[in-house]
């Protein structure tokens, strides 16, 4: 399709896009460089930011909380999201199905995606506060943050699973039925293998969403549930930039980029293997 574009335009696109890529990574690179910045009176790279970071019990506790929150919420979010995606693609009548079965579930699923995250976070803060005042349950902390995270993760997982299943031939289910598979068996032997890539992708997406989020976490957090992003935000507000924050930021950026590239190449390789087998 690229042959339809004249060389001059292609060169222009190339010349424009490379600087855009550079611009996309410049801020991230700056943090990496600053994290090794020499302190006053010394020369050469300096790892003070990193040693400070690993010796700081507050940061380590925040890291543990972030990981607990991400993995815990992503597990439940993937479960609920997968069930939603599966149910809506399998059991919803092809032609709409009226308001209750057709429109309302879609609206509910899109609500967390569309709602501005500030409104999302504040609503939940007020709700948890209200419930806590009247019942003593759900005091602000990792639990309330987890509930909020599951709320925004599950719709995305549902969309991923739904997209995967809607590309599937409906007759496969009829075929499995003809082979005397009951609902449970066809779920285990047909749906699960088909959905597995979407399941893994959905789970990783849920973890990314959890780690990426600040606004919703910030408003649903309690005094004892400072996660990494909230710690960083507080540190910036208190004392501005510091080598320690540069170091935390670099590690977070490095981890996300590393995991994303790993996932990309692993799935690409498996795809190529499948093509080779076929």
């Amino acid at each position, binding site marked *: *399709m*690229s042959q339809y*574009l004249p060389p001059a335009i292609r060169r*222009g*696109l190339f010349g*424009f*896009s490379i600087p*855009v890529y550079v611009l*996309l*990574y*410049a*801020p991230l690179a700056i*943090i990496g460089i600053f994290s090794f910045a020499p302190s006053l009176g010394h020369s050469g790279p300096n790892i003070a930011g990193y040693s400070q970071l690993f010796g700081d019990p507050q940061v380590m506790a925040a890291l543990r909380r972030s990981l607990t929150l991400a993995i815990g919420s992503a597990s439940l979010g993937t479960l609920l999201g997968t*069930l*939603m995606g*599966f*149910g*809506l693609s*399998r*059991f919803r*009548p092809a032609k709409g199905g009226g308001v209750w079965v057709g429109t309302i579930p*879609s609206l*509910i*699923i*899109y609500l967390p995606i*569309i*709602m*501005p*995250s*500030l*409104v999302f976070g*504040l*609503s*939940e803060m*007020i*709700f948890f506060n209200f419930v806590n005042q009247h019942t003593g349950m759900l005091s602000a902390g990792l639990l309330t943050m987890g509930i*909020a995270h*599951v*709320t925004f993760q*599950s*719709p995305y997982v*549902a969309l991923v699973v739904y997209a995967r299943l809607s590309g599937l031939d409906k007759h496969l289910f009829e075929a499995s039925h003809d082979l005397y598979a009951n609902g449970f068996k066809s779920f285990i032997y047909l749906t699960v293998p088909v959905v597995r890539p979407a399941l893994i992708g959905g789970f990783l997406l849920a973890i*990314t969403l959890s780690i*990426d*989020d*600040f*606004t919703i976490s910030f*408003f649903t957090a309690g005094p004892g549930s400072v996660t*990494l992003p909230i710690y*960083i*935000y507080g540190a*910036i507000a208190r004392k501005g*930039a510091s080598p320690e*924050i540069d170091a935390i*930021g670099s590690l*977070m*950026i490095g981890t996300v*980029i590393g995991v*994303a590239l790993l996932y*990309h190449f692993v799935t690409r390789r498996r795809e190529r293997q499948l093509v080779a087998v076929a």
Partner: protein
Amino acid sequence: MVKTAVQGEARAASFRLWMTAGPGLFWIVLFLLIPSAIMLGLAFFTNSDFGSPVLPLTFGSFSEVVGYGILGWSGANATILLRSLLQAGTATVMTILFAYPLVFFIITRPVNARPILLLFAVLPSWTNQVVRTYAWMQLLNPQAPLARLAQDVGLIDPHLGLMPGNFAVLVGLTYNYLPYMVVPLYAATEKLDWTLVEAGRDLYAKGPKLFFNTVFPQTLPGLLSGIILVGIPAFGDYVVPELLGGDRATMMGSLIAAQFTFAPNWPYGAALTIIMLVFTCLGLISFRWLTQRLGGGEEAML
């Protein structure tokens, strides 16, 4: 007899639907729909001296929103609303201007290079919001090389950084939301029917005319999704204006958040939230109307 069998099957399907999709839907209703309804309801309560909502029900918060306070009318809120709309709109236009060439660059590369190029365009947005914005603070502050260059060229006064301010907020928003424009636009461009471009060229269309008559209509569904995905969150963004904006670049998000944190006035904050949601809904409704009029863009919808 046949009819009841069909009805029974439909009932079984709807039972299975609620068994599978039910828990997730119930979760969202309980933990988001009901909380946001409560939040909106708060707008009609009176503010107590401690910033919490009390009876009687009133429209007082709304007159505060339009600018009537104890000191008479002020245009501060209107300014903030207009600034938020303007910043979100400009950021959306910026992402469009960056995304079109980028997407067409990716599409001109060999097929097996495209996924990794797309991934590299999206990757920065997977890092944490605060870290990303902090990175721009590092890049734009008065001591940073970029700000010094701007000082030397004479774009800004010496000793003044590129942040905090409206410019820094615009940069932050554009950076944050660029991938949300790139992804839907890429999806639309990948399916582009290039024979139509050839046909246009055969009819002696050139340059912008060729683009707007052949390419643009085909990428329009992707563009519209991108505008929604960028415009709405940019309008309600909290982190970017908070960290890069400073006092004279306040946007709706910071104003609302302040009413629930250090200047507690929950009813007023809830009323401001309603204003924000009204503009969000207006955006969504016009988007739906446009996609329906222009056709397409629905297939990925659930």
